[in-house]
């Protein structure tokens, strides 16, 4: 059988420099999934974009063919006229972009943008389109599709935007779906749901799929074929099972070796910390939606409620949870980027014995001092980098702002930092758009570390990194924490990462913390149905132990189906209560809290 798409000897380069993609070959047949894995910055995204001819302006395809053969009449996508290409784009081949936050138009409502994908190819009435889009929204896990339809991108959480992007690519039911890291911003249950949906669609329409991912667990669960890339070249390619079982190439081996796992529990004695660097008391946040009708009352969205966190100095508090559950909001409030609703309090102690500063109402001087100490790695690194600033300037900006060091010292430090996150220093002169997704994420981390802060808030700092680079970054973070007594508020979807780095984990769902405990407690003794579902949904890089996507996708389901204890309706959720110590561990208060009726 002819493959649906075969890429032959593809080489792509920027400007006059060395090609960044060299002699890449792969092919994918209808109904098949090809997983593209590899190092961050190895050219995965560029190769995918080449298929649709939407390379950055500076890039050229240096050689190679890309034969697309939907109906026995192969065309070379590299040389196709733009008119013909137009009929293929979005219709035959759809793409989910890696950075959904930037890839949606900021001025148009989500519904409009998604429905457009339908309307562009083929006649469909407005109401039909809306119906189908809403349906799709439902299937990618939007709790309230109607609200999503009316939202602007900036009103959605990272994961929600990503799902909107997925919906947009999938509504048109393409022949080939290119999914560039489609689930990085999704929690594992939602991820399972989305992956399940893709599988379903594949079975339904015989869609082929190119899946770029870092999560070997996802590869194991989804792919028939695997292509491993490193520095623009294919290292190893072939059917998934054998490669996963026995990687042949040293890079592949190295990669697989680095995959994190949830460690086995080691009983640890945790003294109760009194030196809290950050405290959040009863923090809630309500947003008003922009897209109101002129005459209707504005719609409110409760992003999070009743948050009580305390972060001891030198420790890591991790937040995991459902996409859209208010994690980012909480983090932004902690940093003072957003004011909490009245009544909430955020307190920061720069030194153990200093009087705490109220982050939510700082004066100018306090704010400046605070900003010197607290830094953030944004969930969406692309948007948070000034597009017209070279990386060198971006990295040295914090130093400049706080007037630290001379110009050349700042540059040295920028170069050093860049090396620490694994990027070559010649990238200092580039602009943010000339990086891969993972590279930008590392830039964001580097920038946050420039000032040697004492509190670092990381909003999914490693979601776009391949496991080996991720390992490197996590080690870096750990080293710094140990060396400088840095404290982290760490948001992540990757439970294995959380298990590795966190001292305490809070699980959030729909704006509420449902369970909070040290990782070893939480992962091995989850109490809340949602936590349980979450752990079950974590994919493992083992082809022999596939998870049942359908099953875990249902996650914990809606509260009505939960055990009596946890059940609630609307906003009258039960309080968070401390768990009595488990039989196993006899230690005193383990600090395990769960939201339930007692």
């Amino acid at each position, binding site marked *: 059988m002819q493959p649906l798409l075969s890429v032959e000897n593809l080489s792509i380069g920027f400007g006059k420099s060395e090609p960044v993609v060299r002699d890449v070959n792969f092919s994918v047949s209808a109904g098949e999934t090809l997983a593209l894995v590899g190092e961050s910055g190895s050219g995965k995204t560029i190769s995918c974009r080449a298929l649709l001819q939407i390379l950055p302006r500076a890039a050229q395809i240096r050689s190679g063919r890309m034969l697309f053969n939907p109906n026995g009449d192969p065309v070379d996508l590299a040389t196709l006229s733009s008119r013909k290409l137009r009929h293929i*784009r979005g219709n035959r081949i759809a793409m989910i972009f890696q950075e959904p936050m*930037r890839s949606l*138009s900021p001025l148009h409502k989500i519904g409009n943008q998604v429905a457009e994908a339908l309307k*562009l190819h083929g006649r469909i009435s407005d109401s039909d389109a809306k119906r189908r889009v809403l349906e799709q929204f439902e299937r990618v896990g939007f709790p309230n599709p109607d609200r999503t339809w009316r939202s602007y991108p*900036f009103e959605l959480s990272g994961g929600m935007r990503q799902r909107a992007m997925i919906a947009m690519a999938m509504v048109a039911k393409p022949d080939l779906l290119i999914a560039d890291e489609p689930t990085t911003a999704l929690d594992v249950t939602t991820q399972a749901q989305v992956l399940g949906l893709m599988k379903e669609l594949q079975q339904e329409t015989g869609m082929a799929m190119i899946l770029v991912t870092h999560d070997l667990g996802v590869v194991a669960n989804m792919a028939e074929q695997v292509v491993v890339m490193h520095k623009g070249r294919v290292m190893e390619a072939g059917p998934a099972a054998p490669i996963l079982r026995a990687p042949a190439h040293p890079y592949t081996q190295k990669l697989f070796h680095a995959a994190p796992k949830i460690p086995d529990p080691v009983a640890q004695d945790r003294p109760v910390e009194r030196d809290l660097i950050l405290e959040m008391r009863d923090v809630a946040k309500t947003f008003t939606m922009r897209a109101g009708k002129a005459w209707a009352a504005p719609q409110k969205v409760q992003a999070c409620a009743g948050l009580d966190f305390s972060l001891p100095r030198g420790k890591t508090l991790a937040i995991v949870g459902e996409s859209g559950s208010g994690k980012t909001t909480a983090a932004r409030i902690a940093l003072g980027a957003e*004011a909490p609703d009245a009544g909430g309090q955020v307190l920061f102690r720069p030194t153990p014995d200093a009087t705490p500063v109220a982050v939510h109402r700082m004066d100018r001087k306090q704010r400046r001092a605070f900003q010197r100490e607290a830094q953030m790695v944004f969930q969406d690194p692309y948007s948070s980098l000034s597009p017209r600033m070279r990386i060198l300037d971006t990295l040295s900006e914090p130093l400049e702002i706080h007037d630290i060091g001379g110009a050349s010292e700042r540059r040295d430090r920028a170069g050093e930092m860049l090396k620490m996150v694994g990027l070559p220093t010649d990238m200092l002169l580039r602009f943010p758009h000339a990086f891969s997704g993972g590279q930008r994420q590392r830039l964001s981390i580097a920038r946050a570390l420039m000032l040697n802060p004492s509190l670092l808030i990381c909003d999914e700092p490693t979601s776009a990194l391949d496991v080996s680079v991720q390992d490197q970054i996590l080690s870096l973070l750990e080293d710094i924490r140990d060396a400088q007594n840095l404290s982290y508020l760490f948001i992540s979807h990757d439970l294995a990462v959380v298990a590795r780095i966190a001292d305490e984990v809070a699980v959030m769902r729909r704006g509420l913390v449902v369970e909070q405990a040290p990782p070893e407690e939480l992962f091995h003794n989850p109490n809340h149905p949602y936590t349980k579902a979450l752990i079950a949904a974590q994919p493992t890089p083992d082809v022999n132990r596939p998870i049942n996507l359908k099953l875990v996708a249902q996650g914990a389901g809606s509260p009505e189906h939960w055990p009596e204890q946890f059940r609630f309706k609307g906003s009258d959720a039960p309080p968070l209560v401390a768990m009595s110590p488990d039989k196993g561990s006899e230690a005193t208060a383990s600090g395990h809290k769960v939201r339930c009726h007692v």
Partner: protein
Amino acid sequence: MEILRYAIYRFGTMLLTLLVVSVLIFWIINLPPGDYLSNQIAEFRASGQESLVAKAEFLRQEYALDKPLWQQYLIWMGFLPGPHGFSGMLQGNFGWSFEFDRPVSEIVGDSLWLTVLVNLAAVLFVYMVALPLGVIAAAKSRTMIDYTAAFIGYLGLATPNFLLALILFYYGNKHLGLPIGGLMAPEYEGMPMSWDKVKSILLHLIVPTFVIGTSGASAMMQRLRANMLDELGKPYVETAVAKGMRPSRMLAKYPLRVAFNPFVADIGNLLPSMVSGSVLVSVVLGLQTIGPVLLQALKSQDMFLSGFVLMFVALLTLIGTMISDVLLVLLDPRIRYEGRDG
């Protein structure tokens, strides 16, 4: 809801501003020493026409020009009743034009709608030309199309309006039989609207529209092009391309909307700048718009007339800025007018 509330609030501020502006306008037109009637009186005196002096004196009292300035203002605005039942702007009485010896409302009546017509035509022209050209020039930047559009635009900008008008009139008349000057063939004047009259007006509008519009159009085109170029590199444009949109639709829907922000901001200036920009054009082209009337009124210090025209233009400006502020929020949902940390 919020937008409605904002619009209402904005309308309130507009009225307030209008009040301030009215004070300033009144002050400005009274800035030159004397007023129409005292000038007239002086002139009559100087030339010994005592008879007319008495009449002018009478008018002075009639229109309260002998009162202190602040009272004059209040009377003019209609906050205070004037002598002999003279009521002010708020009551819809715009006063008397000494120069034309007719009520102000009668004089401006015709010119107002002609002004609006000419300027509307010019605005339409600007948008119809500048929008597509600006977008195309950006999409095809650094091509012959781009350069040609720039060249023609700058040609229009670099030609003084009157010269441009003369050239267009002269050759337009010679080769195309276009009429020279005026806004309609004289025979249709005062006739009820008919198809022929409309045709005649349209024919006469060609050159003025072109003359008033070219500079605006090329300015808008170049700025739009620059803004579009900034947007074209953004990822959301790629997303739209990946959807398989036609370039024209894609450009119009996505980047244009972002690029349009500075222009919406300037809508308030569109009409008034054309009104004042077209004053000179109107004077030299003999268009019966409000411009020449204003110039004449200002020169002779015909204060009720110039005051009304200026208030009218000010009102247009304020309405324009109000609309632009409301439109801005509609155009870009991210925009809030609150303070930075509010």
